[in-house]
């Protein structure tokens, strides 16, 4: 399986993602934002970080990068595109996934483990995964997902919500919402479910010595689904 990680100026989880993808069997290539061509890929990842310093608006400048036109074309033709954290912010700026990401409700950067409930398994990202709840790690300042009521209706009608913040038993309640996201949304698909944007970092949860191992479940499952 071939994967591609895009590096924007200010990306800082690109290496971590490269390490994780390779660990679970992807042949990964790093691609510079100013390049025009995407290499042949089964998965394209927009990594976390602070592309263009998050100046102007998180993800907005990166969404206009040269490489992004190729990524948008790739996604439109059904290619798998995963945006993590800043990558999610870039995805919403391109319009590949609906909604926006606002500043966290408590106006503070937040770095900690959270639980998320998988809300849809009819997609290549979560199909066949045994767990209902995963322990993931978040680290962001602007992860407060928001959309209009009309958008929300469409999102829900199409089962586009990927994961919601919850407790370890999968209970989705306000008190387990770390950033104020509408409906505790932590990750969202496009209509066709080949594009996934999410705030949590599975690449930081890939061995027992780190924050946990549920990231390993995610990547193992993903590569198997792509085979």
């Amino acid at each position, binding site marked *: 399986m071939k994967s591609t990680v895009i590096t924007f*100026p*200010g990306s800082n989880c690109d*290496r971590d993602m490269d390490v994780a993808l390779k660990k679970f069997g992807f042949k990964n290539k790093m691609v510079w934002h100013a390049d025009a061509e995407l290499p042949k890929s089964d998965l394209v990842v927009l990594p976390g970080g*602070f592309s*263009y310093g998050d100046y102007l608006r998180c993800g907005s400048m990166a969404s206009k990068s040269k490489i992004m036109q190729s990524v948008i074309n790739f996604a439109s033709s059904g290619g798998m595109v995963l945006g993590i954290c800043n990558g999610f912010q870039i995805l919403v700026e391109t319009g590949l996934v609906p909604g926006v990401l606002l500043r966290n409700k408590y106006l503070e950067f937040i770095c*900690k483990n959270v639980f998320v409930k998988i809300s849809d398994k009819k997609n290549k990202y979560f199909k066949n995964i045994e767990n209902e709840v995963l322990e993931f790690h978040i680290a962001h*300042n602007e992860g407060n997902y928001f959309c209009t009521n009309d958008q929300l209706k469409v999102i829900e009608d199409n089962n586009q919500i990927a994961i919601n913040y919850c407790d370890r038993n999968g209970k989705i309640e306000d008190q387990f919402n770390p950033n104020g996201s509408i409906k505790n949304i932590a990750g969202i698909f496009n209509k066709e479910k080949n594009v996934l944007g999410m705030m949590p970092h599975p690449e930081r949860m890939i061995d027992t*010595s780190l924050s946990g191992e549920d990231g390993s479940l995610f990547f193992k499952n993903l590569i198997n689904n792509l085979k």
Partner: protein
Amino acid sequence: MIVNEQVAVDHGLKKDEYAKICELLKRTPNITELGIFSAMWNEHCSYKSSRLHLKKLPTKGKKVIQGPGENAGVIDIEDNDAIVFKIESHNHPSFIEPYQGAATGVGGIMRDVFTMGARPIANLNSIHFGSPQHKKTKNLLRGVVHGIGGYGNCMGVPTIAGQTSFDSSYNGNILVNAMTLGLVKKDKIFYSKAAGLNKPVIYVGSKTGRDGIHGASMASASFDEKIEEKKPTVQVGDPFTEKLLLEACLELMAGDSIIAIQDMGAAGLTSSSIEMASKGNLGIEINLNKVPCREAKMTPYEIMLSESQERMLIVLENGKEEHAKKIFDKWNLDFAIIGKTTKSKKIELYFDEEKVADIPVNNLVENSPMYDRKWKKTKLPKKNKIKKEDIKHLKIIDVLKKILANPNVCSKERIWQQYDHTVMGDTIQKPGGDAGVVRVHGTEKAIAASVDSSAVYCWAHPLTGGKQVVCESFRNLISVGAKPIAITNCLNFGSPENEESMGEFVECVQGIGEASDYLKFPVVSGNVSFYNQTKDEGIKPTPAIGGVGLIKDYKNMITMEFKEIDNLVIVIGKTEGHIDQSLFARTILDEKNGPPPEVNLFNEKNNGETLLKMIDNNLIKSVHDVSLGGIITAVAKMCIKGKKGINIKKPKYLINELEYFFAEDQGRYILEINKKDFRKVADILNKNAVHFDELGKITENELYIDEKTKVTIDELATSHKSWLTNYMSK
């Protein structure tokens, strides 16, 4: 502008210093030259009051590759790997503008580390604020924490440990000390010593603006009521540019183009160019019209004194200019050839085709002033006798809850959750433990680091306090299973012109020196911050020690939370019942006098090394060192983190229960061991003459003392966690 004695004094120079400048130059300096002298000769850059004493610190050791004098210290961690690290203060600017002050402190220290070719792998910080009730404290705390996070998070470097304290002596002068560790290959370390004639001098990074002019001079004076007017001397940080600068520099360093490199920190272009020339015993010629400027019509004076951030000065090999420019173009950074090295041994500056400065380098460096300031010795205070009737009414659980909720002991989770501590995917011990630990990427090795200070002990008796803080650093590293290698120190004091403050400095340095010499824990880098003083009120002496240690196999790392029910808990190190200057004495008894706990270096080393041996033999399940709040506070924290209880039986001692549990005697650790290993552990401890007490056994969810007093761990956890959350939420 005509330069005279008054202008020099306005620049922070003393009258005799100005006379010396005129004598060295054999003429009156022009305004640019005066600015350069004032920047190089201020306390912050010249160490004129501290040099004499710093020389006495032990700086050598088998593992030391580079000691003080470079951008940062470097230690050997085997397999051609080395760790570059340093701590630095950004106290004065952080008080004036907390967000930018703290942010640029973090930015500055990271630059010091990657200037040497190392990729930063961990940040730490030690921050100190006034009384929580003081009207400025909350905003300063918020601003500093946001600033540290804002810069470090954007750079993608995890903040893995730190320390936050509150004391009214910081009401008018907060402390912000930032530390960075970087990883480099031993044969790819870069230094700031220029070499070779006619080599191009390159400016890269951000453009030069009018921010931070005289920042270093501002940090070399006490505060008064007009301090708010100093805001323009605070630099403004841009972590995004620094991230690009980091990647661009590392990319250029992968080749062989660089002869010398130096970041532009305090006193900007002035100190960076002069340091490179001085170390290389060369001259440097700069055309200031070539310096990329952010603002129009900047004068030579402003260009030389600006402390705009995210800039570097590089001496390149001839013919590598194009190659280097390509890299900086790729990262969208300014690149300009601004001068060359010369044999004149002078710093020669040109602007609009006129020579605007012409100063022999040695006048600025070797001939800079050095003072043997007057200082006063601090006598060891007399011990207090605790009267039985003063403590009779105290209930141990109530006291424990109060201590756990004390601002200096309580959980700082609300702070460190705002720092990205997991980026780079190698953080295996997060903040909140005894030390932060990161793996050396792609290897079995891990690096532990902690930062400590004990201002109260240093204030009561600087010599003992200086020793104690080095020992505490040593203990914190051992507590996570790391072998301590070396330290960096950030020495925060009041005015050196005050005999008491200078005495505190001299004796703290002496204490640090004695302990680091005895423990083979040399000082490889550091920084001095004097004038942490508002009018006549100085801070408590606060040397912060950043310790670094190595864990050969990261799977042997130890954490502090209790692991398993029925395991045994023991205390190693002797408890004498030293209450003076303890948190118990100061906050419960309101007794602020008396000596700090005595430091016995032999015991400290012996206890630590013996424990490390037992950890290597897999006999230890968890460890926490005993510090503020004594044994019971340490045990309570292990219970809270492990969500387990403990059944304690106080050993039969002559001292009473409160003294036993709250004393702050040094050299002690709490250990968790498996029952079946008890004999082995006891034998090793006895053989090595390490005193130990059996304390109790791990249980489900209550702290139970001598079968009469108990409290649930949930209740203790609430006391421990709620103070800061409540404070910061309101």
